[in-house]
């Protein structure tokens, strides 16, 4: 586990055409500092797995407008109109998954499973082309696991080993993403000495985390601001 000086050095392992997971439910729990650095990095052809592709002109929404994202995999794109517009123009490929399937596919990917059967989506357009199986009289569809080259996540407190604690509803997809990528970079508000976090409160044990930076961008009720402005 390495603590990076800044977002630029933390993102050296991110390359064009990779698949990256990005935490957050909208901007809540999104790694805003790392995303901000991606908007400056010369990169394209990304497949991004994230619940939403940010909001209009914010967060991952900036990467959408910069045409750095080739494909988005998520559950809710309605909240950023730019995503729909780009899709209608054929500039971005989208894969829509039910939110529970998105989350469970990450968990499966992180837990060494090839996929799983779920009843969510059976009989709908989102089940088209998916294998069906009847188990004890109930119809399920097969969903493959999701994995990524890199996961960019947001946590609240970390210790120097990389153990993570999350804050309120900013937890969302971050703990699953931490398990399901080859390289996991966490952006955190605070780094404390190992031993300062209670073993019971640690949500993501350090073996999942490869790198960390201190967050420079934070979400306030007035929008995203730089940390020093707080």
């Amino acid at each position, binding site marked *: 586990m390495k603590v990076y000086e800044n977002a630029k050095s933390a993102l050296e392992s991110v390359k064009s055409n990779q698949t990256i997971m990005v935490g957050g*439910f*909208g901007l*809540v*729990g999104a790694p805003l500092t790392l995303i901000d650095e991606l908007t400056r990095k010369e990169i394209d052809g990304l497949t991004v797995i994230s*619940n939403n592709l940010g909001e209009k002109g914010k967060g991952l929404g900036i990467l959408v407008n910069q045409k750095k994202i080739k494909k988005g995999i998520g*559950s*809710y*794109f*309605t*909240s950023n*109109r730019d*995503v*729909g*517009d780009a*899709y*209608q123009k054929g500039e971005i490929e*989208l894969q*829509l*998954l*039910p*939110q*529970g*399937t*998105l*989350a*469970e596919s*990450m*968990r499966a990917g992180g837990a060494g499973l090839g996929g799983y059967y*779920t*009843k*969510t*989506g*059976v*009989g*709908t*357009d*989102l089940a088209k082309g998916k294998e069906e199986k009847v188990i004890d009289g109930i119809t399920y569809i097969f969903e493959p696991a999701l994995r990524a080259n890199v996961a960019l996540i947001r946590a609240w407190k970390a210790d120097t080993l990389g153990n993570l604690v*999350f*804050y*309120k*509803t*900013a*937890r*969302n*997809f*971050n*703990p*699953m993403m931490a398990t399901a990528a080859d390289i996991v970079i966490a952006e955190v508000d605070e780094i404390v000495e190992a031993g300062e976090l209670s073993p019971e409160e640690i*949500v993501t044990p350090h073996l999942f985390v490869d790198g960390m930076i201190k967050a420079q961008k934070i*979400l*306030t*009720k007035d929008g995203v601001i730089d940390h020093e402005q707080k």
Partner: protein
Amino acid sequence: MSKNEVQELIAKRAAQELKGRCVVNLGIGIPTLVAKFIEDENVSFHTENGLLGVSDVEGVIDPNLVNAGKLPVGEAVGASFFNSADSFGMIRGGHVDIAILGVLQADQTGLIANWAVPGKNIMGVGGAMDLLVGAKKVIVTTTHTSKDGKSKILKECTYPITSTRSVDMIITELAVFEVVEKQLRCIELMPGVTIEEVREKTEADFIEDLLVV
């Protein structure tokens, strides 16, 4: 009635369905308003982005404490936070008693469409499909007609359906419908509404089963 009054009327009626110890998931829009009409402390609200024990904002707004509509909320006594996979495990696994959802369309067998409009920028399934397969009871709250005055309760949905499971109840500003064995039954009229008006504004076939008061 103004738009707000219509929404509150529907939400208030839906709130009457929540009694006693139960876990309830509220969708975006009118469903969110239901919480403010609940006084019963035995009703717990679940939000799929990872909180059981949603309450109103008390004091300072915390931007990292939100509901599924990304609106700021508070945490009730005994609240708990969890990740999205656990949250949907609760939903799919049958641990949520009631889901209240908005729709684009509903049909006369109780099927709903609320996640996509072909050719439009509405491409968001969110937790709707999971809630329909997992919640023990599903209540729809919706305006009876769309902005252009067309019935939202149709013979058959023209938009892609959300699930093959029928919802249990549909509440609009005109009437309350129950779905029994894939048939719509109008069981209640909202104050001042006549059955003729409901017939006129509803494309779907339904059985008139009004309780005589």
